[in-house]
């Protein structure tokens, strides 16, 4: 039973790290301007609306799908 209690102590410590990170996130303003956050992975040459991956070119040099614009 002592070991099971020890597991529980470790589980609580692990849970507390998550709670501590949540408190920091709120205080640091991580939950403000979320739309900007969602768009932070796009760049000037890889903007929203651009597909950035495709199968390699066929021997004829034709590539499928790359850079197709979605007009979003």
């Amino acid at each position, binding site marked *: *039973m*002592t*070991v*099971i209690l*020890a*597991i529980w102590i*470790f*589980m609580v*410590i*692990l*849970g507390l*790290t*998550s*709670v501590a*990170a*949540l408190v920091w*996130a709120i205080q*640091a*303003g*991580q*939950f403000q*301007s*979320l*739309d*900007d*956050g*969602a*768009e*932070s*992975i*796009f*760049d*000037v*040459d*890889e*903007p*929203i*609306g*651009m*597909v*950035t*991956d*495709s*199968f*390699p*070119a*066929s021997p004829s040099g034709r*590539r*499928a*799908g*790359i*850079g*197709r*614009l*979605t*007009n*979003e």
Partner: protein
Amino acid sequence: MNESLPPGSTRSAAFESPPSGGDLSEAQTLPGERWLIDQSCRQVVLLWYGSAVFWLLFGSLLALTASIKLHTPWFLADTAWLTFGRVRPAHLNTMIYGWASMSGIGTMLWLFARLCKTRLVWREGLYMTAIYWNILVAVGTIAILAGYSTSVEWMEFPAWAAGPIAFAFFVIHVAAWKMLANRRKGHLYISLWYLFGCTMWFPFLYLAATILIQTPASTGIAKMATNWWFAHNVLGLWLTPIGLASVYYFIPKVIGRPIHSYHFSLLGFWTLAIFYNWAGTHHLIGGPLPAWVVTVGIVGSLMMFIPVATVAINHHMTMVGYFHVLKTSPTLRFIVFGAMSYTAVSVQGSLQSIRALNEVTHFTHYTIAHAHLGVYAFFTMVAFGSMYYVMPRLVECEWPSAPLIKVHFWGTAIGMSLYWIGLTWHGVEQGLAMNNPDIPFIDIVQRTIPYLWSRSVAGVLMTIGHCAFAISVWYMLRRHGATSTEPTLFTSPRKLFQLRQSARQAT
């Protein structure tokens, strides 16, 4: 390590000035900057990836050997180190610590650099850590095959290996911390939360579990409880966060559309962070543990419906209207297969923790199918997809062959589906039969054999896919694909910017 542009190269001009008319916000990176960030990861990430693919092939051989032995017991039965009791844990550990962890860390380091918009820190140290990691996995696997397994599932490497492995995880954690400290943008994208979370949780988990399992006070049921707290969290707090971080980056990035609901993604992360840790004891339903300990595990498992639902809705809604891209993007094919499997395995896992269902499925092949749905159909497929996106940007050439990628995808997708369907169907049959005292046990065992054959056939299909992938990776490392002359592969920044402008004008 090479990270500077060759002076006077034709690329330089493209990097120095953004495409005309572009508005640069704090969040955006110039093509040249992104190229430098990618190149700072080059040697380190390629070493982690290359090693991972080696362990994938080696682990596949061990898996096939173990699978064949189940229906053909005399296969390689005369050699002690190739007996089932050694080959099976050797397969598990090479796949978890060799393939899954090494490919996951490779993608993680690249994502840290891209999302923090800064070059990879401490590259020499991370390069040495990959070599050190390979040595540990090699020595640990040899020890298991030589008969020195601890017999504690998911921790079969000898006890002396635990400290050095925990140290390697700690090095990754410190590197992650340094990357976050150096980040250029204050906001942490959702993938960074998952990645930093797992680098923080896992070293602690590994060390705590090792101490509790190795202590003399830990015997019998206490050892088992620790074992399953740890083993469940290897998937939940190590592989799952890396997999979800990859999905949250690659789906929006490949299709060019932000995540459907960023609010949902944050809710999903925080609920996973708070609930997942408690779910492990559901593995011990029916075991001689205090009932409340198991009940807490069941409650934790059912609470996981919240993060799973948020992730499933988010990924599906982001993809709506873009499913046609699956035809043309190898990355997206693997990632979407993985994301759908995440939903399936998580719902299945939560339901499995209900006592009435567990009474049937426990101790059957249903559990084996479930474990592979998590580590393979979800994590491994996401890892493949991530590597298809990252590697061309590191080696600056295209994947050598589209047919090889298709063999890889269909071999692994059909193989995994066959594996899961066969063992899940039979698992239920087997469980119901074992709960019926009128059915002789040997009859149940014999009824299992055709399904074990289906498992071996599925394993062969998956291994064919792995071989196709390994050939592609080998050619990539040798740079046999078509070379790109642009700072970012697949796109010419200026040309695409002009296309974008004309599309705006057209609308």
